[in-house]
């Protein structure tokens, strides 16, 4: 009798394997509802597996001989950590399934949907397999399938040139990441002689080389600065449920690997990794949110915000790693718990936000903030759910984002107060300040997104004619929102699970349950009752003296046009100016006319943010490779004489090598 989780896993694998095949043959994709339902069901099986393992012993599973990979078997290891990530996958993909069938309706005429319905289950399956992989080879295979299937999903709207471009950028980035990853695995294997993660015990300088390669490779997928550039390209291009999955879950698989290899095992044991992650995480967080703040595309905002959240998670992980090496048990536990909790939270609220953005995109056919506005009246439920998601992602209590950020703060405070070295304590202080900064910045960012897209008056006809999203789409978002709120209130429950996860890291630390003393349910009740009470009182007062409606105040100058509302660019301008050094932000004001000062005839204002990473690092790199290509193509000039000469030269070279080799 196999353990229960095996049954669940088997069912899930069957689901995910049969689904793509079935999808390939469902030529008319008439059964979209069925597909959605099946995907939801599959997510449930994953959740089941996760839950059974969370309350049972870890298990290993090695596939029988035909599935041998030459040097290693296809092997899985299902422990609590994997179960946690399985739950993340399931909780995020399950609700997305409800969203899918209505959302994908509009793509039907644009492309062959079989590819989509094939790639989607494959993506889910491969994400689960990445999390379950017990050895490097299994991991890499699942990883690549994940990359390829998500590439196909990003390219769903391939008739659009920019989508194609974005998909290719994504594919390229992910491949470069895989190259680093492969390098790291190879190196680790060369040093340890094993592909099994559990057998890797590299410490000291030996761990640095392979560890850094792996971090780079995983960082690309995770969207860690400075490898995050594919996120803002790919996420807007993908269909929204796919962006939700990619941003909410796929990115986390890379974080899973980091957690697994650098924190939860002694595979790569060196404090430098902790510091590196701390630094890169901090930069990612600030950089991500700063760039989210100035984006015009709603989904780009969300994509950059993912970079920020990944940064926060990495801070947690990095803090935990360095604290482990310096013997601050409490901080290890808090950092790890914060990171893992935030991983789950981010999966929920980022999915929610992406789905909301998808509804907006679907109903208005634009994601450009400058073309939206006034959607709150036309899509009230979507608006409300988006506010909730935004509040959660900004870490506002009593939602789930707060709990994770609070744990991060506690961890930082622990380091600041009880760190064993002055440097570490200073790190703790900086982590606090930096997290606070990121928090305020994300508040500004989401206020801007909400305000410009949903509030005020519609700036275009498309926004004016928007309709509320369909029920299925709202249901999906509602489930995610309920998850956000529920997790925010049920923090002790989540912490009890996390406790079981992180106890092995820091057996002697104070239990998390005693750290978390905040009476969130009570606070929530208090807030709700106070708000409700005052609101009811206001309502009754309004009945006595009815609220009169009038136009927005226009200083008496006549009708306000929607163009006079604040633009997304101008909302961000004061902040952009404050951080102009980061952005290389510049405003070019050009006034022209005969009497330029008093009677300008033409005024153009242009704000620019320099893309430092792109122009200074990535473009030159690409250009070098390109030039190498040009150069080598010149060798193939078509002249047979040249070819023969080259051959002769090669002969001489080989002879020389032969002659001088001892």
């Amino acid at each position, binding site marked *: 009798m196999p353990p229960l989780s095996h049954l669940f896993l088997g069912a899930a694998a069957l689901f995910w394997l049969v689904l793509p095949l079935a999808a390939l043959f469902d030529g008319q994709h008439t059964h979209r509802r069925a597909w959605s339902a099946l995907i939801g069901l599959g997510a449930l099986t994953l959740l089941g597996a996760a839950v059974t393992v969370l309350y049972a012993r870890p298990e290993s599973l090695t596939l029988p001989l035909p599935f041998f990979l030459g040097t290693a078997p296809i092997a899985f290891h299902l422990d609590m950590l994997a179960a946690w990530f399985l739950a993340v996958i399931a909780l995020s993909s399950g609700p997305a399934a409800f969203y899918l069938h209505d959302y994908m309706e509009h793509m039907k005429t644009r492309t062959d949907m079989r590819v989509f319905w094939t790639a989607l289950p494959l993506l889910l399956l491969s994400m689960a397999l990445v999390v379950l992989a017990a050895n490097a080879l299994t991991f890499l295979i699942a990883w690549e399938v994940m990359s390829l299937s998500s590439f196909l999903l990003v390219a769903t709207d391939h008739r659009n040139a920019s989508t194609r471009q974005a998909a290719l950028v994504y594919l390229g980035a992910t491949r470069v990441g895989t190259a680093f990853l492969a390098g790291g695995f190879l190196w680790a294997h060369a040093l340890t002689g094993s592909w099994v993660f559990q057998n890797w015990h590299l410490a000291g300088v030996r761990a640095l080389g392979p560890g850094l390669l792996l971090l780079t490779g995983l960082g690309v997928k995770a969207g860690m600065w400075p490898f995050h550039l594919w996120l803002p390209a790919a996420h807007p291009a993908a269909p929204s449920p796919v962006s939700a999955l990619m941003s909410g879950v796929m990115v986390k698989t890379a974080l899973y690997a980091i957690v697994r290899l650098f924190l939860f095992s002694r595979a790569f044991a060196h404090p430098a990794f902790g510091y590196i992650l701390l630094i890169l995480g901090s930069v990612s967080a600030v950089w991500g949110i700063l760039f989210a703040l100035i984006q015009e595309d709603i989904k780009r905002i969300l994509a950059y915000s993912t970079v920020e959240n990944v940064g926060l998670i990495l801070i947690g992980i990095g803090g935990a790693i360095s604290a482990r090496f310096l013997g601050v048990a409490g901080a290890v536990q808090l950092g790890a718990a914060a990171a893992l909790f935030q991983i789950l939270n981010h999966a929920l609220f980022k999915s929610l936000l992406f789905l909301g953005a998808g509804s907006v995109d679907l109903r208005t056919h634009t994601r450009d903030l400058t073309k939206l*506005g*006034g959607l*709150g009246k036309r899509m*009230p439920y979507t608006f409300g759910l988006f506010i909730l998601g935004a*509040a959660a992602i*900004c870490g*506002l*209590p009593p939602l789930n984002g707060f709990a994770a*950020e*609070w744990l991060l703060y506690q961890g930082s*405070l622990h380091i*600041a*107060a*009880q760190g064993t070295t*002055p440097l570490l*304590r*200073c790190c*703790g*202080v900086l982590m*606090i*300040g930096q997290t*606070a*900064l990121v*928090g*305020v910045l994300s*508040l*500004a960012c989401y*206020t801007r997104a*909400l*305000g410009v897209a949903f*509030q*005020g008056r519609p700036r275009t006809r498309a926004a004016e004619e928007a309709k509320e999203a369909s029920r299925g789409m709202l249901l999906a978002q509602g489930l995610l929102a309920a998850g956000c709120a529920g997790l925010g209130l049920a923090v002790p429950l989540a912490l009890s699970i996390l406790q079981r996860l992180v106890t092995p890291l820091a057996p002697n630390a104070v239990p998390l349950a005693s750290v978390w003393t905040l*009476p969130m349910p009570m*606070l929530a009740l*208090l*807030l709700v009752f*106070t*708000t409700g009470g*005052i*609101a009811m009182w*206001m309502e009754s007062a309004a009945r006595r*003296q*009815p*609220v*009169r*409606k*009038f*136009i*927005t*105040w*226009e200083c008496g100058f006549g009708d*306000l046009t929607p163009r*006079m*509302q*604040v633009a997304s660019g*101008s909302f961000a301008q*004061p*902040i952009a*100016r*404050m951080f102009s050094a980061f952005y290389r932000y510049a405003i070019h004001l050009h006034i022209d006319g005969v009497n330029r000062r008093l009677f300008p005839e033409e005024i153009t204002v242009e704000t620019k943010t320099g893309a430092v990473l792109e122009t200074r690092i990535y473009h030159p790199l690409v250009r070098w490779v390109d030039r190498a290509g040009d150069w080598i193509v010149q060798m193939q000039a078509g002249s047979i004489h040249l070819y023969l000469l080259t051959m002769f030269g090669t002969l001489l070279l080989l002879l020389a090598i032969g002659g001088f080799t001892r």
Partner: protein
Amino acid sequence: MRFASILLLAFYLIHALTLPLLLAGVIQFSKSRFLNRQGPPLLQPFWDIAKLFSKGEIISETTTGVFRLAPIISIAVMLCTALMIPWLGVSAPLPGDLFLIIYLMAVEKFVTQLAALDAGSSFGALGASRKAAVSIAAEPAVVIALAALAAHAHSSSVSLFLATGPGSANLFVLLLVVAALWLAVTAELARMPVDDPTTHLELTMIHEALILENSGRNLALREFAAAIEMTVLFGLIARVLLMALPPFSPVTAYLLSLGLILAAGVALALMESILVKLRWRKIPSLLSFALTAGIIANLIVVLKG
């Protein structure tokens, strides 16, 4: 015990509902006096609020439910905050936590800004944008400054890190924290030299721009919430100052706190009378002083311990 805690709750609630308006009156009054004006009576804000509450509302037809709900949430949040901070010298009725309080205040900011954006007026949006920009500079300073105390106490629980008595942080740290808080808090509250609450030239203001569309009861709630915020924050500063002194009996502590809050009001009035409003672009550098003070306080705590 239970009765005592209910009593404490009532005590805090009453103060939270009355003291803010009194403080506003004190500020108005002393400001007028500093300017050699007669000024309104001390209790004028009470009458103002009462009048506003009795009036009807006009709202923009562009607004959504957010606009109506936001002031209510602000008030609720501010009341909750007021119950978590021991700003009256005696311990707070609810267990508070530094980061929870900061994030609760962020909730207030969030809904306020959303409400300001709701009407689609460019003033509201300007106000929201500036409010966001100011808090980006100010809030980390507040957090950092208080974190110095929390790091000293090894806890972010308010009852622990704001505890007076022996072992409380050294004077220099406290002064730095107070300085940082004062700078950051006045900025957050949109007072001089960051914002001039008396102007109604829309292009320069922050707070007034935010509430430009509000009227009647709605406006009353907003103003009330802002007043509570100011009082609580001043009370917090007073509490930090009290930590520098040897412990007092609860009554003395309460009276001292009360006095300090009102004194802070007077000080604010003085400041607003003698300072001019800073250029918008200078504000980050002003607030960087707060941040620096906070960081220095932290460094002292962290490197010493």
